[in-house]
């Protein structure tokens, strides 16, 4: 009379034990992977991690970009006539069928902005050089300028920078 219910309980315990054993086995594998990842992470110098965070910051940081642009232009004697940040575009990914998928937090997002500067050709070339070598990426996608008297030109630039949440 008591054996049957007890056997049923044992069956439940065995099933639960099997599930936990399977989970443990999986966790052990994941643990090994995590240890491997941690070792790799620990082998990266902290200064490089800091540079990586500057290269691709966690926020759009338009305020910081504004300060950077002023510093770059001031250092070269260039007049920063205006700077406008357009809406930040979230990360999207293209699916195999060509459609765009919702934002994936692991993908980067883009900050689009326009600059107008007044400078000599040589100073402008130096500014482009600074942009191209800047740690936080500054991609100049469009440049327009027209010649002017006195050796000073008006340059209009479309620029992109990036961040990752």
């Amino acid at each position, binding site marked *: 009379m*008591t*054996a049957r219910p*007890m*056997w049923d*309980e*044992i069956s439940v*315990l*065995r099933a*639960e*034990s099997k599930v*936990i*054993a399977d*989970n*443990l086995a999986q*966790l052990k594998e*994941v*643990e090994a992977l*995590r240890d491997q*990842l*941690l070792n790799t*992470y620990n082998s*990266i110098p902290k200064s490089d*991690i800091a540079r*990586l*965070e500057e*290269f*691709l910051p966690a926020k759009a940081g338009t305020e910081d970009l504004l300060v950077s642009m002023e510093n770059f232009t001031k250092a070269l004697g260039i007049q920063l006539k205006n700077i406008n940040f357009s809406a930040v575009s979230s990360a999207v990914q293209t699916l195999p069928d060509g459609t765009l998928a919702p934002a994936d937090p*692991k*993908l*980067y997002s883009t900050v689009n902005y326009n600059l107008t500067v007044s400078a000599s050709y040589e100073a402008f*070339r130096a500014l*482009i*050089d600074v942009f*191209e070598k800047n740690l936080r*990426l500054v*991609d*100049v*996608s*469009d*440049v*327009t*300028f*027209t*010649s002017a008297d006195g050796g000073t030109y008006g340059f209009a630039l479309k620029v992109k920078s*990036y961040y*990752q949440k």
Partner: protein
Amino acid sequence: MPKKVSSGMEYYKNEGLGALLRLSLILFILASVLTGLLFAYKGLLARQLDQQRQILSDLQVQFEPSLVAQLEHVASTITNAKMLLNKHLFITPVFNFLEKHTLPDVSFSSFNYSADKKTLTLNGEAPSYTEISAQIKTFQNQQEVAAASFANTALRDAGSVVFNTIINFK
């Protein structure tokens, strides 16, 4: 007085009851032993299960979800950084190209470059139509140029010729 001999039927009747009793006893003992074993097994299983749960719980604590999230973030940042570096836009080569391959008597008054389209549009001025032709051929002959063309040529009062040119880079 002669002894009364018991009948065989009584004898077997007594023996039958005894065997049944013994059989019942054996079965009872077996059932008790089995129940005892099951009880012990159940206890063993329950203890094993507790141990497994404890190990699982310890492992989950060791995993530190915040650390895993941080590692994941750094890994995806490195992947994205590589991707962005690979497609980083450099427009300096366009200026270098123009400075190197513009003929001495030709000048450009406006410049428009689109990195996405790899297209440079210029408004220029040359001393003659022949010089415009030479300039376009010079552009076309460069290995980094996919196509170069001109349009809207017009003679100015001063005798020079203005023109537009579009250069498509590879």
